[in-house]
């Protein structure tokens, strides 16, 4: 019975072998460390755990970490789409260069981008000076955190949306045009539905990366407790104070919250897929 359950023809030989490998690999690389985290947290009593959870400094850091990541991912979804659009639809001199530039935040050590951002946006920095004159301070505020997360998250959106946009054939748009649809209509009814799943994937990846980001943020955020302190930083502080249990507890809380958010987005995506491609293509 069980063997007919799983049997699914595939070009890779040995279903048992590949499933076994997948389970083993995930266990060693993902589940084992996470289990250790849970295990470490479990050595706390409920009241200890609860006090760490609702510590005002911790609560403020959740708000900043998740809030900034959400905001940055949203902004990235918007601008990343535009960047992907211009890369796919237009041929301009230096297009390949720009294309390569997109991946740079992937490759750069996060600390480097953090220092670079801080240098540019600090009140004495090149851009910071001008912004200060306009009464806006970016560095050492929550805005700085958002800017850093935008930089880090952009490639995720662009790289997810790009292939989907390539897939939207010109003749679909032309068909809509001959049927009387204006540019807005074509975008809203034809292009957006086609790339939405990819856009959501990009958004999710950027969000996930933003929640966990540490290196680039700490240089620009100023790290003021209750104001510009992100959760990962709080964990590092606790580690430096040899409060391993406290660090593990915070880590566990982040883990649960991230998992819930990502799972929810995945559900939305699966629902969308079912709706669009019911009964296969």
């Amino acid at each position: 019975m069980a063997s007919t359950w799983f049997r699914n023809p595939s070009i890779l030989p040995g279903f048992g072998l590949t499933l076994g490998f997948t389970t083993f690999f995930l266990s060693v690389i993902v589940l084992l460390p996470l289990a250790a985290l849970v295990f470490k947290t479990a050595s706390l009593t409920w009241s200890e755990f609860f006090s760490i959870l609702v510590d005002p400094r911790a609560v403020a850091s959740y708000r900043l970490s998740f809030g900034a990541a959400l905001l940055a991912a949203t902004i990235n979804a918007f601008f990343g789409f535009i960047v992907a659009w211009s890369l796919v639809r237009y041929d301009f001199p230096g297009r390949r260069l720009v294309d390569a530039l997109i991946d740079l935040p992937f490759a750069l050590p996060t600390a480097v981008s953090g220092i670079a951002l801080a240098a540019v946006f600090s009140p004495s920095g090149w851009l910071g000076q001008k912004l200060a004159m306009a009464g806006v301070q970016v560095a050492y505020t929550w805005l700085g955190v958002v800017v850093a997360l935008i930089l880090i998250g952009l490639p995720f959106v662009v790289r997810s949306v790009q292939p989907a946009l390539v897939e939207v054939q010109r003749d679909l748009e032309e068909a809509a045009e001959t049927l009387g649809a204006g540019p807005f209509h074509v975008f809203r009814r034809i292009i957006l539905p086609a790339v939405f799943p990819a856009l959501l994937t990009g958004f999710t990846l950027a969000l996930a990366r933003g929640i966990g980001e540490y290196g680039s943020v700490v240089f620009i955020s100023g790290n003021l407790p209750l104001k510009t302190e992100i959760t990962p930083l709080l964990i590092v502080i606790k580690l430096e104070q040899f409060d391993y249990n406290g660090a593990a507890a915070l880590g566990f809380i982040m883990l649960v919250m991230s998992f819930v958010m990502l799972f929810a987005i995945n559900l939305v995506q699966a629902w969308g897929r079912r709706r669009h491609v019911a009964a296969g293509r």
Partner: protein
Amino acid sequence: MSIVLDQVTKRYQAIPVVNDVSLKVEQGEFLVLLGPSGSGKSTLLRAIAGLTEIDHGRVFLHGRDVTHMSAREREVGFVFQHYALFRHMTVGDNIEFALRVRKAKAAERRARRKELLRLVALEGMDDRLPTQLSGGQQQRIAVARALAHRPQVLLMDEPFGALDAKIREELRRTIRQIQRELGMTTILVTHDQEEAFALADRIGVMHQGRLLECGRPDDLYTRPQTRFVSTFLGAANLLLGYRSAATVRFNSQVATGEAVPREVVAVLRPEEVELGADESRVRSNFVGFGEVEEVLFGGAVERLRVRMAGDGPVPVAPGRQGSPEAGSLLEVSRTLPEQRDFPVAIGRRVAVGARRVHVLPTPISSFTAVAETEAEAQALCDSPLLSTLGARMHTRVAMRVGRGDRAPPGMPAVATGTGSAAAAQWQLRHGAAQLLCVPSTAMLPTHVLIHTLDAGARRATVPVAASLLRHVAAESVYLGIHPAASIEKERAEYMRELLDARSAALAEHGLDMRTELRFGSTADELGRELVAHPNTMLVLGTSDPGHIDWTWLGSLLEGQPERPVLIVNAAQAEQALGN
């Protein structure tokens, strides 16, 4: 008039892909644009829909100038080869799209949707997704969607291209029925001639960006005007024939004392060939003897290839069929009764007759390279311009060493350079109706400049230019030049003359050329135009070669840079036509 195109031109990187196309389509007419891939037919269709911008010309839909309107404003229905259905919408939403865009009421949308689904015989499919339908069904939905907003014209770009033969035939019938039912003006693009015959009220054949011919399917098949159409629509043997009085003969031996017959290009359809045991058994126009080389049984018709004797008819393009001595291959097809009457096997010697021959009106039948030595003649044959022209026109490029006693039939060709003026003059004085002067390195021209030295030469010059331009993707300009001193009243007259020439060229020869009027000396104005466009061929018409200013023409032929010049000797050409 439902659709009117006026000199529509579209260039990609300076190369015209749609070249000066003018066309009128009547209300309710079904026009099929037929042509090989890359002939510009799809581009032309997209230009009508407003999906491609044009560089020159105008587009009218129902009397409304839509040249500068977007596809959205043109109110056309367009059907794409790969359906282009919106995959994230149901069939019903796809059909209603155009109505939703126009903010139609829900009840109206629903009614129209039902009506259209009934029309394409897919009732009850409203809630399916396009991906759940077969290719044929998807294309039906695409047609229904294109008709939703009651467009004035329906444009279809190879709509059956992605479907298999059986579904294609069925869908073809549906489309024809819908088109008749709605009285919808329709243009369909295809490369499939069977499809064109099955659907069209009129067929327009396109080749290299030009609309070569446009007419009723049976007219195009029985009386094609061009080499391309005669071989593209159905199979055809193109032979060089000799027209004297009312008949066309296929061997060039001329009895002494007889007038020199005119060389023509004759179309002999495979089904018009008659085979018999010997000359007396052939009831139609006797062509010659041949040997059956190949027999293919094909159900209702039998296809044969007959190798004609070496002194038999000359095919227009001998290069493809071995040495000239081996004789030409004739394509023959016979019905079952014909096969019963006279069964043949491979190797059998047969007498060949032609039941019906159609003579193409093209004045350029073949080329003959004339030079003093064999090496020079060979070099002239191999020159890029002459060899490409020969290949493009599928015609013979023969060689003649020494002048002989009169000009060769068809179009003689001489090399430009030193001594070419004298050679050209000799040819024109000895019976050449037209003459091509070829520089050894010249390529096909991108510009063709047409000019007649006197008004009387126009009637003979335009068909030669038209015949040439059908095979060359070049822009053509007809230049009228008049003395600088001409007065205002005369100028209006000249302008009208020029426009008359243009409409006559279009109506009689399908040649759409631009016209320009200049005032000054002929030499100066032509010279200026030749300098402006380096890759130009000059087509020069004259009623009397004696009136040509040979010092000027000589400098053009023998000076630098060398340019191809085609001279039309109108008096000779008209005499040949009258023959």
